[in-house]
Structures are given as C-alpha cells and as structure tokens.
C-alpha cells in the first residue's frame, strides 16, 4: 500500500538556514493496517502525513502509493491521486462554513469523474450516524458531529488510505471516543488507516505504532491483538 524509502524533507527557513523535518525515513504499510504515528510536536509527524497524503513532495527519497510512483507526478496527477486514493481527517474538521453537512460530504465527488451522487453522500452520512443532520449547516453541528461529517467526506470516494491528523484533538472525551469507534469500525471493514497523534489513549487503538523523534523513526512495533476498546 505505502512504500516510502529514505524520505527526507528539508524546510528552508530564511537566512538562518534550514530545518530537516524528516531524515531518511523508510516505511512500508500493508493494506488493512491501522498505523498510529506518535511523536512530540516538531518530531516530523505532520510532515510525514503531508508527504504520504501527496500534499507535499519529499526533498529526497521515493514514495509509492498503491503501486504508483508519486515522485514525478505534476499538480493535476497528484490532485487526482488524492481524490481517488486518500481520505483526509483533520484536527480542526475543516468543513466549509455556510454549507450543509450533505454538501460538505459531496465535495470530493466534484473533483472526480462522473456525477455528484447525492444518494451516495446520504449513505455516507448514514454510515456515520448523521443522516438526520444532512441539511444542517456545519456551524449548527457539535464538534463531534462535525468530525463525523468529515469522516463521511473522507470515505465518499472509497479511498485506499485514510489519513487522520489528530482527529480527536479538538473533541471532548465522549465525542473523541465516538470518532475513534468509527475509525475502528472502518479498520475492521478493511480500510487502511494512518493516524497521527501525540495522545497515548488514542494511540492505543492502532495495530501498529511508529514513534518519531527529531525526524527519525525511533521505534516501529506491531501490537499483538488489536485492542478494539482502545484506551479512551
């Protein structure tokens, strides 16, 4: 599914020199895994997520996503790839304001072939338990509900990979638990999930845990027996 080899990312910070956010990171993720990436802030986990999500090219190294060598893709090809293969879930939900839950879920369908399938969007909302809220504006929903709409949006194009960036970071305990339960269900259904967090409780949901420190992978361990209950 994911094959990243010796990936480095260097940010140039004006005249004061450059920062190497990732140093020779190599990573293989098989389909169906639920990988948690942990690390303190500044450890490079967000940078890794951006690169794996094809939002940011690595400075060095090669990256194959679902068999496609992404390195030489141009903006249009990368966009198409994101659209088809990656579902994003963000810490701050990132729903469009003044837009209904349903329309938010539909947006990824705008940028792929074919029509915007309203029934499919409704089904996705149903999947996250929010069919009744379809016509509510994003701002009328609670944080937990907004994040579930975001999960529905991430699912709508049946992506190969779901990337979640601190999905519970802005949520209270109960809402966070609901969202994690949803992600676990998706994992059980066969989705590949990569989740970035610095929260131990959230990290406990994963079937594999990668720890980053200063741009380096310091540990990478597979857990025996997925604790479906997690730590929340």
């Amino acid at each position, binding site marked *: 599914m994911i094959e990243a080899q010796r990936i480095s990312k260097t940010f140039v910070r004006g005249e004061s020199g450059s920062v190497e956010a990732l140093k020779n990171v190599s990573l293989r993720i098989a389909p169906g895994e639920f990988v948690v990436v942990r690390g303190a802030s500044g450890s490079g986990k967000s940078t890794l997520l951006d690169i794996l999500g094809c939002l940011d090219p690595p400075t060095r190294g090669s990256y194959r996503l679902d068999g496609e060598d992404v390195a030489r893709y141009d903006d249009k090809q990368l966009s198409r790839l*994101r659209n088809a293969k990656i579902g994003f879930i963000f810490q701050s939900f990132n729903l*469009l304001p003044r837009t209904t839950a349903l*329309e938010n879920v539909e947006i990824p369908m705008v940028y792929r072939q074919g029509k915007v399938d309203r029934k499919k969007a409704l089904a996705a909302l149903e999947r996250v338990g929010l069919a009744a809220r379809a016509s509510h504006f994003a701002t009328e929903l609670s944080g937990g509900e907004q994040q579930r709409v975001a999960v529905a949006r991430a699912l709508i194009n049946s992506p190969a990979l779901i990337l979640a960036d601190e999905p519970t970071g802005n949520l209270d305990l109960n809402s966070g638990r609901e969202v994690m339960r949803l992600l676990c269900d998706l994992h059980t259904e066969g989705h590949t999930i990569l989740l970035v967090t610095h929260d131990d409780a959230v990290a406990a949901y994963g079937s594999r845990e990668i720890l980053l420190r200063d741009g380096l992978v310091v540990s990478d361990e597979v857990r025996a027996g997925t604790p479906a209950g997690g730590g929340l």
Partner: protein
Amino acid sequence: MSAGKISSQAMRSLGRYRLRASLMMLGIVVGIASLAVLSSLGEATKRETMQRFKNMIGTFDTIIVRPGGGRTRGMPTLVNVPPTLRFEDAKAIASELPEIKAVAEVQNAFDIDIKYRDRSSSPAVFGVSPNWLALRSEDVADGIFFSAEQNDSLTRVAVLGLDVRNQLFSSEDALGKAIRIADVPFQVIGLLKSRGAGPAGASLDNVVLIPINTASRRLFNRDFLTMLIAQVRNPERSDEATARVTALLRERHHIQPPALDDFTITNPAVTAAQVARAGGTLTKILTGVSVMALLIGGIVIMSLMSVAVSERRKEIGVRRAVGAARSDVVQQFLLEAIFIALAGGIAGVVIGWGGMQLVTRLQQLPPILIWQPFAVAIGLSLAVGMTSGLYPAWKASRVDPIQALRS
C-alpha cells in the same frame, strides 16, 4: 473535474456570500445600465434626427441648389437670396442632365399674412412647381394638388398645411373656401398630410403651398428662385450628379475659374448624417463615463474577491486536499467572477431598458427597440468578469493547502 460541476460549486459559493456578491455586482450594474441607456439613446436620437431631416426634405435622393456662394445659413427666402438662380436654370438641369430625374422649383417667403374672415395666420408660403408632391412621394390628405395647367395659367389656388388649416378654420371645412394671402384672394383646393417636426424641432405643417408661377407673378413679383430641388436618378452616385449640376450652372452663369460658384449645392443625406453625428458627441462623452464606471466595477470585483480569497483559504485547502487541482481552483474563482459580472450585466440591462423607456417618454422620442447596445453590454460585462477574476483566481490557486488546513 467537469466544468459543469465546478460552475455549480461557483454558483453555490456566491449563494453563500450573497451580500458580498451583490456588492461586487453594484459597479457593473451601474456601468452597464448607464451604458445601455446612453448608447441606445444616442442611436435613437440619431435615427430621430435623420427622420426629421427626411420630414423636411421628403426624400434623401435629392440634392438642393440654393443661390449664393459660400456657406449660406438657415432657410433661404426671397428677401435674403441674390437673384441669380433662374427658372431657366431649373429647366436646363431637368432637360440636359440624364443624371437628374426631376427638378422642383421653389420660391418661398416667411411670415406672410393670411386671412380667412376674421381669422389670420402667418405661415411660410411656398410657391412650388406642380411636381413637388410626386418628387417627395407624398400625397394630399384631402382635396387635390394643383396641376401643371393651373400653374401655367397662374391660377390662385392654395394647399394648406395642418397648422394653417387649424388656425384659420378650426373645425370648419376648408376645401373650396376663399382665403387672402397678402391680400390676394386664393381658393383652398387641398390639405397636406402632417409632416411632423423638422431638424430644429419646429413644426413643418405651418405652411401654404401655391403654384410657383402664380407666386412669381401674382404674389411676390420676383423672377428668381430661392431653391431648386433636383431628384437624382441614382442616389448612390449623387456626387457625380452634383458635379454635373455644378458644371452646367457655372457654364450658364458664365463663371470662369478662379471665380467661385454663385450657388450652393447641398446633399441632404450627407448633411443629416453630419448633424446626427455632431449630436452624438455628448453621448460619446457620457458613454466614456459609463465605461469608467464599468472599469471601476471590474476593479471592485477584483479587490473584493482577492480579500475573499484570503478569507476562504481554509475552503481552498479543503478542496485541494480532496482532489482539486490548481486549475480547478482557478476555474472556480474565475467562474465566480464571471457569474457576478454577468448577473450584474443582466441586471444592468434590465434597469437600463426600463430607464430608456422612461427617458424616451420624457424626451418624447418615439419608442425604440434597439437590441445591439444591450448585446454589447452583456459581452462587455462578460469580458470585465473574466479580466477581474484573473488575479483572484491566480491568488487562490497559490494558497498552500498545508498551511491553510492547519491554521
């Protein structure tokens, strides 16, 4: 992906920010509305001017010869022209030049006292040749026009314009009645159709027509013409006809170079077009002003939309993350600008149309149906939308999704 889906996204965005969208439209609405009103009004005025000339001249396939060289001003009359243009000149032009189909002779004077019983009027009196009506392809409204025989035998008959008829007779029947023109008795035999207003706006119906020979010998006692009107056979080649008439008259009047003509020839079609063009100058200036308004409208769209891009960074980031290429973002913002300008243009056209109807009614111009300025207006607003959307669209496509999504 597809333009249809992107345009529907653009439409929805505009719907979400209605107030901003209508503000962006405002300049375009004003610019287009005034542009539409002014340009169609200019066109209408031009047509009206041409029409009034036509009212006065009758047809545009004529050239007019007046006695006196240089630029003459106003309407010639018996008191202000030199006695150089003769009846024989008219006969010679009609018989010797194949380019000329017919010649009408005119002898006219203004403010002649006319009486019927105790009522009086002081219209223009025109002595004209009997072919006058035919040359202008006109007809009498009632009664008859005088014949060549009546002209030859100096019969005292008159055909009245509408204003004169109304003043002297009001509701009474005028035909067959005796009137006195400068104390000479005449019989009313016909009534003219109304000709409306001339180029200066004055009525063309305040007129009495009498046979020119009667006028010359029994009323004015003058043996020269104030004007002759020559109908050209081929209006496309009236320049040629003018040259031939000039040559013939110079020869007849024994004028040798370098002496100048002792007559003036004008081409009403050309004159009318010149006057119509001159009247358009103000319209042109005002049109410039509305083009400025349109430009400002475009700048308003550009700047408000650029601000909107900054506000909508998060939205752009989301769209990029879920699969929008830079080109999709460019397309959406360009389309938003175009839709705004188009909507503004359409609103402007509707308002402009209404305004035009109002102005034509107030100015008492005939109602006009001119669609070209409106088509141009719509095209213009489209162009303004496209240009003003370019910068914001480019700016939107440069939003870094990573930063936008984490902010």
